Structure formats: structure tokens, C-alpha cells
């Protein structure tokens, strides 16, 4: 009975659906996921697990918004998000590389801290003020390119963070697989002792990569407050940092794979939201569960087939 209803609804859905807008929305929704997943790739390829990405995005969404709000300048907001992301990631780096704290514990601490900090300062500074926000990043149409049929509207009529995401997928790929730094990064993630023996400064490589992942996470966080809604709400990231880690795993720790996996999660999210608008007779809560359940399925299914960097999660100590 219910499956028949579902079939009717899906038929309705595909008749009413606007595939172009769905594709555009998927790219936009994939933006923070991809950025955080790229951060995860950088970090884990050097041998450090980063489950703090959720907390990094939450805090930077907040800091970016406050900075943009105070200065009335979105660019300064973006910069503040980047810098604060790097600072939080530096805390993760110091705890896990220097003080050998279990990397999962360190990441969890940062996630709890993010809840505390954003909660306390949201209440102090934002809740009472009747905020007239700084607005959102403008949509930039790239001349000529945006007029290409199909690809034009999907790829070249976006806001700044989405463009940055698209460029960074390529940049991180090139860094990781076509530069000396990338080779060193992967060496530290696979066999730090061998890397050390070859004269690579394992600690330095890990520090730089963890902090870069903070910058990527910070950009991802700025998506929520500066690109999507132009405001900050507690818990606005809604677990996207964790979903990004699943995208990283599903994408086999490669930037392009992580991007494609993020598109998959974002697609599930977008279709779920669209179904709600179309008044499909499935309770909205179940549609909202889609990306979370997909994450569980993917993490269970991809594990074992996707091979993690061999030394990820293990602190390296010189004797």
C-alpha cells in the first residue's frame, strides 16, 4: 500500500522535477562537504585523523559571520573564517602531534569546544541583537562560460565559496599527486619512519597539512553563514563535517573521489528536501534522514575496499 503511494509520488516527483535546478542545488549543497572532505584528505594523507572538521566548520561559520557583521565586509568575514579554522586545526595538531593525545579524543574535544564556544558567544552577542546581517556572497556570472547550455547555469553562476571549492578540488589533487610536498605528505601517511629516514621532517609535514585542513574546513564553515543564509544559528553545520569524512572514505582518500562522493551525499540531501516541498506522503523526518543513513551505508560498504593511509592515526615519535 505504502509502496504504491510511493510509486505514485515518485512519478509525480519526476514529472514536476526540474533537473537543472536539482543539479545546481546539488553542487551548492556539496560545497561544504567537499571542502571539509578535502581537508580530511590533506590531513589523513599525512597520517593524522581529523574528526574535528565538524567543530571547525561550526566555529568558523560563527567567527566568519561575526567578523562580517562587525566590519560590514564579507571578504573580512571569509578571511576570519579561514584564520580561525587554521587556529583550531593548530590546536588539534599540537594536541595530537606534540602531546600524543589520541587523535579521535582530540577531535572530539574540539567538537565539544566548538559547541561551547559558539553557544556561549551566540547567546552573548547575537541572540539579543536584532541582527541585520551582512548579507550573503553575491552570485557571480562568469562571462561567456555561464551561457554554455546545461553546464553554464550549473557551474558558472555560483557564489564565491562554491567557485573556490571547484578550484580547490583540482588544486589539492595537483598538490597531492604532482608536487614534492604531496609525495612527502603521502610518505608521512604511509610510512613515517621511512620518510624520516629519507630526511623528511615528519612533524613539520603533519603540522602544515593539519593546519591546511583547518583552512579548508574554515572555508567550508563560511559557506553556512556567509553564502547560504547570511546569518548564524547554533548547530548550523548539522553533522556535515562527519558526512564529509564519509565522503573522504568513499572517495578513497583522493580529492576528486571525495568531490564525487560529496555530490552523491548532496544529491541525497537535495532530493530529500525537494520531495518535502512536493508534498510527498513520506514524513519529512524520514527524508531528512537520507544523507545520514547513506553515510552509514557508505562507511560500512566502502570500508575494507577503500584503503586508508597505512599510518593514519598513529603518532610518530623520533627515538
Amino acid at each position, binding site marked *: 500500500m505504502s509502496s504504491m503511494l510511493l510509486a505514485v509520488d515518485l512519478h509525480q516527483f519526476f514529472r514536476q522535477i526540474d533537473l537543472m535546478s536539482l543539479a545546481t542545488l546539488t553542487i551548492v549543497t556539496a560545497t561544504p562537504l567537499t571542502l571539509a572532505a578535502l581537508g580530511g584528505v590533506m590531513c*589523513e594523507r599525512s597520517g593524522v*585523523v581529523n*574528526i574535528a572538521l565538524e567543530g571547525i566548520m561550526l566555529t568558523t561559520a560563527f567567527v566568519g559571520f561575526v567578523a562580517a557583521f562587525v566590519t560590514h565586509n564579507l571578504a573580512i568575514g571569509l578571511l576570519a573564517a579561514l584564520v580561525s579554522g587554521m587556529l583550531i586545526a593548530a590546536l588539534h595538531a599540537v*594536541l595530537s602531534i*606534540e*602531546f*600524543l*593525545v*589520541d*587523535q*579521535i*579524543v*582530540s577531535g*572530539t*574535544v*574540539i567538537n*565539544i*569546544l566548538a*559547541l*561551547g*564556544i*559558539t*553557544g*556561549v*558567544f*551566540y*547567546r*552573548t*552577542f547575537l541572540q539579543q541583537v536584532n541582527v541585520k546581517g551582512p548579507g550573503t556572497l553575491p552570485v557571480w556570472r562568469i562571462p561567456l562560460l555561464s551561457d554554455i547550455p546545461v553546464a553554464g547555469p550549473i557551474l558558472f553562476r555560483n557564489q564565491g565559496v562554491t567557485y573556490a571549492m571547484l578550484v580547490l578540488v583540482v588544486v589539492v589533487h595537483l598538490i597531492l599527486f604532482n608536487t614534492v610536498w604531496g609525495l612527502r605528505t603521502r610518505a608521512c601517511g604511509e610510512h613515517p619512519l621511512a620518510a624520516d629516514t629519507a630526511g623528511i621532517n615528519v612533524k613539520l609535514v603533519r603540522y602544515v597539512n593539519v593546519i591546511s585542513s583547518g583552512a579548508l574546513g574554515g572555508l567550508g564553515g563560511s559557506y553556512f553563514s556567509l553564502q547560504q543564509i547570511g546569518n548564524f544559528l547554533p548547530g548550523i553545520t*548539522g*553533522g556535515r563535517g*562527519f*558526512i564529509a*569524512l*564519509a565522503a573522504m*572514505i568513499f572517495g578513497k582518500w583522493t580529492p576528486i573521489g571525495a568531490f564525487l562522493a560529496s555530490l552523491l551525499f548532496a544529491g541525497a540531501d537535495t532530493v530529500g528536501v525537494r520531495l518535502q516541498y512536493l508534498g510527498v506522503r513520506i*514524513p519529512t*523526518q*524520514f527524508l*531528512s*534522514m537520507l544523507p*545520514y*543513513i547513506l*553515510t*552509514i551505508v557508505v*562507511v*560500512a*560498504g*566502502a*570500508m*575494507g575496499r*577503500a*584503503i*586508508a*593511509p*597505512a599510518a*593514519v*592515526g*598513529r603518532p610518530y615519535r623520533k627515538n
Partner: protein
Amino acid sequence: MTGLAGLLRNRRLRDAVLLPAISLVCGFAVASIAVVLSGANPIDAFGALLQGAFTNRNALEETLIATIPYIFLGLGVAVGFRGGLFNIGAEGQFYLGAVFGVFVGVSLHGLPGILHIPIALLAGMLGGFLWASIAGVLKARFGAHEVITTIMLNYVAFLLTDYLINNKGPLADKHATAPKTPFIDSTAQLPILVPGTRLHMGLILALLAVPLVWFLLSRTTIGFRIRAVGLNATAARAAGISVGWTMVTVMGISGALAGLAGADEVLGVSHFMPPSFSVGYGFDAIAVALLARSNPWAILPSAFLFGAMRSGAGFMQLVTGVSADLISIVQATVIIFVAAPLLVRWIFRLRDVPEAPVHIAEAGGLASAASGAAPAASLEETAT
């Protein structure tokens, strides 16, 4: 500083008392910075916290009421840690326990309390057990890391609860204006311990759970297996212990304790279930367990401390305007210091603090399970 350094060299004393104490002091110190930055006076804020936790009318009883879920949940997370699993899903299991508990409380009628209460509590344990077992089985069978799966299951649990309780959901009170379940039958309500307060029988149950979990972990075969897998899964497997099944058991016990906390909260305190049921008890429980270093007896003071912070935080927010989220900052800092003895050693210039006392999962963290080592422990393997 030499006196303190001397004390810190007495290992047992240091591990049990001083390290947590130092961590707490540092936690409050860091939180004071946040209080100052948010424009309030830390002395006022923490004064109000203490007042709200201990000296106001019924404050101590309210602190004990908040301590009860922390004991159950802290024990649950601690069992996970002892078995090498990081159960971040206690919050979702807490919700599922409450849902199962409230279902029994609302839908069974005419039972005497002596039957109704245990059935509802067992149902709560079952709810948490089932929810956590999903993560346990996925870990044992596919190597899916429990940190990601339990976090995702949290979100699913919140949405599921929301569906059940909000507008016309199956468990919703059709006559109420606000979304909530109906009240549970009076036969399912836990008796009040101290007349005139809300302090309920759950406290006794929680106090009984501590020696039970201690006994389970240190005096039974299952407990031995759990600890062996937690210390070194490879060695445990070599010794013939089924690592996969042990992981499922660990998650199941951990979830059952969290579910018990949820059901107890419904039967003892609220007597119905609103959509946003928890204030983050399940997440706080991670700090409770870490501060207690996963020792069941140490969960008691640790849970009491967090109960005091939780019940005092509301009053602090009311009086000084400092958000109750402040206690998250205290928690995070406490965990840092408990988990990083090297940091304590560095700050206090010590030489002999042990280096890695917090073992969580096998080294290798989030993705090690994918490298092939952990998934070797599959359920099939154990079936033979």
C-alpha cells in the same frame, strides 16, 4: 612547586585524584576566560553555578537528579572505552531508551507498579541495546568505524523521535497543543525518594549499577574478554577470543545502559517525552567517562560533578546571562588534560607521568579499520 611535583610522583594518588583535579582547575580557568570575554564576571558566574547546584532550595536534590543519567550513561561510555570502542552514540541510545520506556509506560494499563516499572526500564534497555547494536554489528562485520556510525545514528534517532512525537506522530498526544507524548500511567512512575522533591528511585538503581558494571568488567568471563579486546585486539584474537562478537557485546551493553538512562529519565522525572528530550546528557557522558578514566567506581564522583554543573548551569544562565553551554568548555578542557598527561608534564615540568594512559580503540584511529586489520574480526569467523 616541588611539593606538588612530589605529590605528582606518587603514581596512584596522582592518577586517581591529582590529574583529574588539575584538569578541573584548568577547565574552570579556561572557562573563566570565556566568561570574561562574554562580558561577565567569572566569580559571579561560578558563584551562581555553585548556588544553583548546592545551596538553593532543593538544589542538592536537583543535582542528584541530574547525576542519575550521568551515572548510567557514563558507565555505558566507560564500558565502550574498556572494550576499545568510542561510543559517541550514547545520546541517540538515550533517546531510543526513552522512546521504548515511554511506549511501555503509555500503552500498558492495569499492571501493578512492581511489574510496570521493570518492564518499562527493560524496554528502555532494549531500545538502547538495539540502536547501539547497529553500530556494533557494522563495526564487527564491515569494519565501519563506530565514531562515524554512532554519530550518524544520533541524527537518525533525533529525527525518528521527532517523527514519533511531533504533529500526529504515532506516539504523539493527540489532545495536547505542544508536541509531546501522553503522560505515562502512574503505575509506571518511579517512586519519589525524598518527599517534597523530584528525587526518585532511579538514584538507587544508578547506585546499584556501579558495582554491577564493576563486577561484570572485572569478575566475569565477558568482562575479561572485553578488557582483553580493549587492550590489544590482535593479542586477544590470537588468544582465541572472538573479537567481532566481543565488539557487538560491548556496544550492546553500552547502549543498554544508555537506554536505561533514557527510560529512567522518563519514568522518574518528566513522565512524558517532549521532542527535545535531552540537554546533551549523552555527549556529556563522554567527559564523565574520560574523567573517571573508565573506572566504574570513579564514575560516581565524576557523574556527581557533571550533575552539579548541569543543574547549576541553568541558574547561572538565569542570574548572570552566561550561557549554560559554558560547561561544554569546561568539559572539553577537562578531557584535554585527562587525555594529555604529556601536556600536564610539560606544564608542571615533570619527568615520569605515564605517556599514553587513554587507550581508545586500537591505535590507528578512525580509518585503521579500513586497512584490513580490524575487519578480520567478523561475525562469520566466530560462528565456526
